[in-house]
């Protein structure tokens, strides 16, 4: 994963990931396992209000627990009168969805100068043509109604899906 994908999987801004790495004295390789761990650390830090170092200990305890699903009781006080209950199934569910979005959508835009926007119609058409866009094909497509274009797109998508599932 890239750093921004990793941050998406952790459900945190990139800056938070950077700061957490520094405070926890860890060097992340942006792996999936690390995203599970740091995601749980963030949840415990943000939602339960544990300091980062304590959240890291509790996350280690929770993920090292025999139970990988359902409620996991961690961080018990010395007298066992207080503890933290983590709904691991719910956490895995959220993390899975965040990881999927990170892998599918990618991360945020990179820094750098934005491309100059074509200001005039002819400039936009020239640019597209130079880029390899077939303008005649576009003009032909625009002769169709929206419904016809959508119908065609649906048929193309079904073809793509069929090809993908074909063994």
């Amino acid at each position: 994963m890239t750093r921004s994908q990793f941050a998406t999987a952790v459900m945190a801004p990139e800056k938070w990931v950077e700061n957490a790495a520094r405070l926890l004295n860890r060097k992340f390789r942006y792996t999936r396992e690390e995203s599970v761990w740091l995601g749980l650390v963030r949840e415990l830090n943000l939602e339960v209000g544990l300091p980062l170092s304590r959240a890291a200990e509790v996350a280690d305890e929770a993920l090292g627990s025999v139970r990988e699903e359902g409620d996991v009781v961690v961080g018990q006080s010395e007298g066992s009168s207080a503890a933290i209950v983590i709904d691991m199934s719910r956490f895995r569910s959220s993390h899975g969805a965040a990881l999927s979005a990170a892998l599918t959508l990618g991360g945020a835009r990179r820094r750098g100068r934005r491309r100059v926007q074509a200001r005039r119609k002819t400039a936009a058409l020239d640019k597209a043509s130079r880029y390899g866009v077939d303008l005649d094909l576009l003009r032909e497509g625009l002769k169709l109604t929206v419904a016809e274009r959508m119908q065609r797109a649906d048929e193309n998508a079904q073809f793509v899906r069929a090809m993908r599932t074909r063994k």
Partner: protein
Amino acid sequence: MSFATILSGLRENDVKFVVVGGLAGTAHGSRRVTDDVDICYETSSANTERLAATLSKWNAYPRGIEPDLPFFMDARQFRATPIMTLTTREGFIDVLDVVKGVGGYTDCHRRSTEVEAFDLRFRVLDLPALIDAKRATGRPKDIDQLPELEALLALRPA
């Protein structure tokens, strides 16, 4: 399994949404092939409940991760992860609470246009907003589509 069944399912369940992403581009004349439906949904609890119920009925599951992990498709899930990329029995669907470069549902709705397809009427992001979204995302595949979308904007009758 088709765009038609996804869109009609959302409409039948009274989900408030705007189509964004590749399918919106198709509506405006893009030739790019897309195989998912991207929507920006209204984030009220009632609408989120309806969307979650619809997706649950379709056995939605995060796309690209191994099967059989715990996954709850309910309104609580939307609070934890408001952006999801899902595979369902009706096809791929990406649900977003905010579209980069455009904003949330209200902004998307304001910058959308109503279209008719698959015997349905629904809203799709308008072309200038779609260009803003693609540019803001900054992913290579979105940047790659900008010349085509800008050409479509230029070809549009004034």
